[in-house]
């Protein structure tokens, strides 16, 4: 998406809900769902005298993410109060981190259009989630189940240069969070939230333009569309002489546009100060080291290993490692059938396609990794042709049966016996004299006719290479 002389400047603030059992500062349940106002306690209700106590697991998860994002893990960080009034914020302040966050100065590598790009991450900090309010005309209702759930806010540098990059960055972050098993990364449900900061400036300009924040973007596709819309809106505004107002806008996915929230223009004064109910968070270096050594192989490292151990191209590796479950699937299959490239191809094309259509994830795919491996072995030992394999695959997906069983049951074995094929070739040639003449007179295209006829006669089972070789030989006369 080109914007002429204009350069978009994009930064993403991603909020990840950490998958802990209890909340950030209290022992009530952090699980999704639950009856209205069931997962509560004096602390998450903001009752008089209630006090926060830090959830160790939430800190552990935050350190994990920070390490995975190549951040500096601060051995001392401070929780601060962000003061503002809203009915879903029971204390009238959110406990967050301000000028001493737990993680700083990280980066993540992403692939956009086959090119690798490094996106710097400013910081990641811990905070608590607010409750939920629903609006009903002349009243609103408040549910505090979610109030206090641990969040990690990951802030990128404003170095993202296109909507596609932004979406890819968000996907990559999500992939890492899921790898670490600390967040299920569900944009639609809200366990992952993506706020986009967008501004534009003329190419070559070093000063930043006025920044607009976009909220309510709940899919990666919308990340791209919302940002693209906003860039265009800002360019149009500036070019017609208007000034960009620093504000928060909401993305409307049905109309594909961003709308001003039209709330009071005064920027909120959050009056941050260190929370006196909490001590500074001091991390034991050896504890951080222990977490570091317990990190699973992360996407980037795994991709590198796929390249060196399996000889896969960089692009394939990067795609396969995005989801840990897919990468796991690949390895199981590749080790079994010893044809990693084939496994990669089948996953990236057919399996991904089927998963998308059936809205499944690979853990629930009807074809297990070892079954894919078996199918590929059958292709490699020429039992079936790659064309036949497509049919077998479709059947496997439908029924979950093994390739070998399907091939046997349907008598689908590829005919590789040259003699048998030769018989069919001779028959076809004999049956189609006029086409033979046409071919010999120079009409090369007729070759395809013969191939088709032989395949048809052999019910698709003749080895295509052999068919080609024999036809070429026989039609040379």
């Amino acid at each position, binding site marked *: 998406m080109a914007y002429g002389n204009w350069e978009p400047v994009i930064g993403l603030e991603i909020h990840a809900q950490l998958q802990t059992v209890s909340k950030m500062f209290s022992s009530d349940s952090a699980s999704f769902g639950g009856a209205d106002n069931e997962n509560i306690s*004096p602390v998450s209700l903001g*009752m008089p*005298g209630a006090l926060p*106590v*830090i959830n160790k697991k939430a800190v552990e998860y935050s350190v994990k993410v920070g390490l995975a994002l190549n951040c500096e893990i601060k051995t001392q960080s401070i929780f601060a109060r962000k*003061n503002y009034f*809203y009915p879903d914020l029971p204390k*009238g302040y959110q406990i967050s981190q301000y000028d001493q966050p737990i993680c700083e100065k990280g980066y993540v590598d992403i692939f956009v259009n086959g090119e690798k790009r490094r996106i710097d991450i400013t910081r990641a900090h811990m905070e608590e989630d607010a409750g939920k309010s629903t609006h009903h005309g002349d009243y609103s209702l408040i549910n505090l189940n979610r109030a206090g759930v641990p969040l990690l806010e990951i802030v990128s540098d404003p170095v993202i240069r296109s909507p596609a990059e932004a979406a890819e960055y968000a996907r990559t972050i999500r992939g890492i969070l899921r790898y670490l098993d600390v967040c299920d990364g569900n944009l639609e449900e809200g366990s992952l939230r993506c706020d986009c900061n967008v501004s534009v400036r003329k190419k070559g300009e070093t000063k930043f333009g006025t920044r607009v924040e976009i909220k309510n973007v709940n899919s990666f596709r919308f990340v791209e569309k919302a940002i693209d819309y906003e860039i265009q809106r800002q360019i149009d505004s500036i070019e017609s002489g208007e000034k960009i107002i620093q504000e928060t806008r909401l993305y409307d996915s049905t109309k594909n546009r961003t709308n001003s929230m039209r709330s009071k223009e005064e920027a909120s004064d959050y009056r941050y*100060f260190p929370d006196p*109910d909490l001590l500074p968070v001091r991390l034991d270096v050896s504890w951080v080291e222990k977490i570091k050594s317990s990190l699973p192989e992360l996407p980037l490292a795994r991709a590198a290993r796929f390249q060196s151990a399996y000889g896969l191209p960089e692009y394939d590796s990067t795609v396969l490692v995005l989801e840990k479950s897919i990468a796991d699937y690949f390895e199981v299959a590749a080790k079994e059938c010893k044809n990693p490239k084939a496994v990669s191809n089948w996953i990236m094309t057919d399996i991904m396609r089927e998963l998308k259509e059936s809205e499944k994830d690979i853990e629930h795919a009807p074809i297990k990794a070892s079954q894919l491996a078996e199918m590929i072995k059958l292709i490699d030992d020429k039992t079936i042709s790659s064309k036949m394999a497509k049919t077998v695959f479709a059947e496997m997906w439908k029924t979950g049966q093994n390739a070998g069983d399907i091939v046997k049951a349907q008598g689908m074995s590829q005919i590789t016996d040259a003699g048998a094929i030769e018989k069919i070739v001779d028959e076809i040639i004999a049956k189609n004299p006029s086409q033979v003449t046409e071919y010999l007179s120079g009409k090369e295209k007729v070759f395809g006719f013969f191939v088709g006829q032989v395949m048809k006669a052999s019910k698709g089972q003749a080895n295509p290479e052999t068919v080609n070789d024999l036809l070429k030989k026989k039609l040379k006369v």
Partner: protein
Amino acid sequence: MDILKSPATDIAAQVKQKKISAKEVMSAFMKQTEKHNGNINAFITVNDKALQEAEKVDAKIAKGEEVGPLAGVPIAVKDMLCTKGLRTTAASKMLYNFVPPYSATVVKRLEAAGAVTIGKANQDEFAMGSSNETSHFGGVKNPWNADYVPGGSSGGSAAAVAARMAPIAIGTDTGGSIRQPSSFCGLVGVKPTYGRVSRYGIVAFASSLDQAGPMTLNVKDAAAALEVISGQCDHDSTTSAQPVPKWSQNLNSDLKGMKIGLPKEYFTDAIRPDVRKVVDNAIQIAKSAGAELVEISLPLTRVGVPVYYLVTTCEASSNLARYDGVRYGYRADFSKSAPEDIADFYSRNRGEGFGLEVKRRIMLGTFALSSGYYDAYYKKACQVRRLLREDFLKAFAKCDAIMGPVFTTPAFKVGEKINNPLQMYMNDIYTVSANLAGIPGMSVPGGYSQEGLPVGIQINAAHFEEQKMLNVAYAIEKALQLKEVPNGIW
């Protein structure tokens, strides 16, 4: 009659020995309360289940079960502490009907020790004040003289014990709110080291200064009650794991080997002469008891007051943000005029629910934290606070305890603001510094003013050194043997 004169530890002993039942004890104090509370207004809410709860203690004793060191003792609990099922108001209209579904840790520990809440004690609204005149539920009279205030903010707690409506009260102290009313009402009042006592379930005023503590008739009761309520709490991240010593069993009035520091900045002409006489006398008692007197300096004493007001108003402005009428508490009447928007809804609830002093302090704190002012005010105050604390650490390298006045005068009259501005200012200095530095402080009765009003002596010790402080108080108490009670109490 005798039971009303007995200190709490004696009452508990008698109850455990079955010489008197917890129910009888509670009945006696209930009668005393009925007799005086209408006039003194020490209690906002009287516990209508008090007798039942006292009976439960008796039932346990009858079964031979363990009941704890305060068995059957009625306690006046400052209305800043949440008591499950019993209205808790912080003396504010904002919480006029709030019934907590849980109890403060301090309350739970007292109950586990066999004590029974007799009522919720009156106080300044949200603990902001020093005379109990800002309560939404009316002021409190000093039992020693009804024309005078009992002090604040724990005025009701002090008055309840002084009038023998309870043998023990629990107060809270952010800048002197236990020590000053204890001084005004002739009681022993202790603010422990910050972090000794859990703040969980206590309405927060200034989180990094607030501490709950006992207000009693004698040092031994205070020590015993402090043992019961102290100790790490898994619901309060700011409590210390320091073990809780058996202070009451180790009280020693022999002060030989102890050095008592006298800060030169404390002893000025601001102190009224009759008060100064009482304080000097107590210092001499300490010397006679074997202590060595040492002059020390706390150079930043004066600046403690503005630092105190900055830090506490900032923290309070945030702590009181939860009072909005959404989930509990006061909601304005919108039947005639709907709120313009949600901000207006909040503003009307809070504007009507909070009293003037509270609103004043919230605004001060909000302003001091606001954009552009944070560094110059709140942050600066916190830096000076560190220096203030260091002053004390240096002082305690030279002495074991510090002595001085609690206040420049005895109790002042209801409605009267002390007319001497220097006195007003200097008063807060004696008490706020301990909260800022986190060190313990206490008031012990030292004598009487020319009007016959009680005058207390303040003693401080280093962090976690409450025993030293209690011992000095014990020595003074033993030497003075003060026997007066307020007129008309019996």
